[in-house]
């Protein structure tokens, strides 16, 4: 493993509780993510996974410790290293069409005008939304809106893609369809993906490495490499015995910690 793309060292984050107590969410957490890796973070609800992701995205300040991305702790927006995020809740602009939403993320990322339209169309097609370019978010289903968010995030060709339970609210069928797109598209690019999820099967099916976190204050409970072959065919993988062995191994670890 060469120099990691994202290195979290001794991250500490505390929140004040309404009862004037202090809630320690992260207390000396250290994780490294290699370049080009697809990592899923699993853990109980409220264990600080989203906080961690927001901190990597630079939207949440740590109380101690540091996060180095591409070897620097400086704010990460810029030409040298592109970071995008697919959020748990809708991040689309309701007053812009699907296409205009993707073009907006290209615009704010500093992509030149004549490329924006072409790239937006290409990525909307890549996530299976051709024919819906002129639709407003309110006219699209939840699954389609998450596809638009995904297209917007991928269109800037990020070096690092953060995903915070992006498909948590979707039904099983829609989820599988989008997961397939994510795997197919990611395997064709060299982005690093850090994805928070609750879904053990999803984690095993998508990731190279699954990191299991403990309850607050969060530490790494357990991590495992998913050595299923790439490229992965999700339709087939759900029938693979190695997949089920991994899933039950993780379930064991989740239900019987320590």
């Amino acid at each position: 493993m060469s120099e990691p793309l994202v290195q979290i060292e001794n991250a500490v984050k505390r929140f004040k509780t309404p009862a004037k107590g202090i809630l320690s969410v992260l207390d000396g957490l250290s994780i490294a993510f290699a370049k080009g890796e697809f990592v899923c973070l699993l853990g109980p609800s409220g264990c600080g996974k989203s906080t961690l992701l927001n901190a990597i995205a630079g939207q949440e300040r740590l109380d101690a410790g540091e996060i180095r991305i591409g070897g620097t702790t400086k704010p990460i927006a810029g030409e040298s290293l592109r970071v995008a995020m697919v959020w748990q809740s809708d991040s689309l602009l309701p007053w812009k069409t699907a296409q205009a939403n993707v073009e907006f993320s290209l615009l704010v990322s500093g992509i030149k005008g004549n490329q924006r339209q072409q790239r937006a169309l290409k990525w909307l097609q890549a996530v299976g939304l051709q024919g819906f370019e002129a639709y407003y978010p309110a006219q699209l289903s939840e699954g389609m809106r998450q596809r638009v968010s995904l297209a917007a995030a991928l269109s800037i060709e990020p070096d690092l893609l953060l995903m915070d339970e992006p498909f948590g609210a979707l039904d099983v069928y829609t989820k599988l369809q989008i997961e397939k797109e994510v795997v197919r598209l990611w395997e064709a690019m060299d982005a690093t993906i850090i994805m928070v999820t609750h879904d053990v099967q999803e984690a095993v099916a998508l990731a190279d490495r699954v990191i299991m976190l403990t309850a607050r204050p969060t530490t790494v409970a357990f991590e495992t490499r998913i050595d299923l072959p790439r490229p992965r065919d999700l339709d087939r993988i759900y029938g693979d015995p190695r997949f089920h062995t991994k899933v039950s191994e993780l379930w064991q670890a989740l239900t019987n910690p320590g």
Partner: protein
Amino acid sequence: MAGVDESRLSCLSRRAWSLAAARLGLVLLVLLGWELGTRSGFIDPFYFSTPSRVLVTVIEWAHEGLLFGNLAVTLGQATTGFIVGTLLGIVLGFSFAANPCIDAVLQPFITILNALPRIAFAPLIILWFGLGFLSKVVIVVSLVFFVVFFNTYRGFKEINPTIIKNARLLGATKAQMMLHIYLPATLAWTFASLRVSVGFAIIAAVLGEYIGASAGIGHMIDNAQANFDATGVMAGLLVLTVTVALLDALLSVIERRYSLRGSR
């Protein structure tokens, strides 16, 4: 599929027609009852006039050139006040929401001003700004401003924080955030308030004319009332009602077209 949809659509439009017919029927019934009631002596036409007389009066006003001149005065005041109040509301609502400092200092005063019964101030405003055009405009502004201000302010504050975080992460500049996020989000709310404030604008202009004016529909109503002319009052009210209803219908068409692309 298409056949089913079509038949449902035509069923809907048939229902819309019968609904309109039922409403029209109800109006005609009331008017007929009113007319017959006065003719048979149940209702005293001195106090309540009759539908036919009201209609005749409106037509007479139109012939004498009173109707459109006075309506133009009222609408001119309402429109000017509406535009000024809306612009002030948008600009101040936006600046208050965007600058926490201004907001913290001035917000309580705005709330207090809004809580004041501004209608009770109308006589003072007439005293300060005279009997003419300006005083009515000020009264209209004082009503319209607050509706637009609070809606604009709220629109800014209700922007989904994820949208802002996402844009910031991608490296959006301040100007891009303003142009693509804050402005459109806020204006959607402002727009929703305009229909309410159009009604307010006309009410405020007429109210100003009641208190002191030399022209306008409100002035005509006030004159008629001073002469115990119930028909004149009713005719003025009829003109105002039709005007506001037309403006409201116009705005609802614009609003529907706009909200199709707005929030769900």
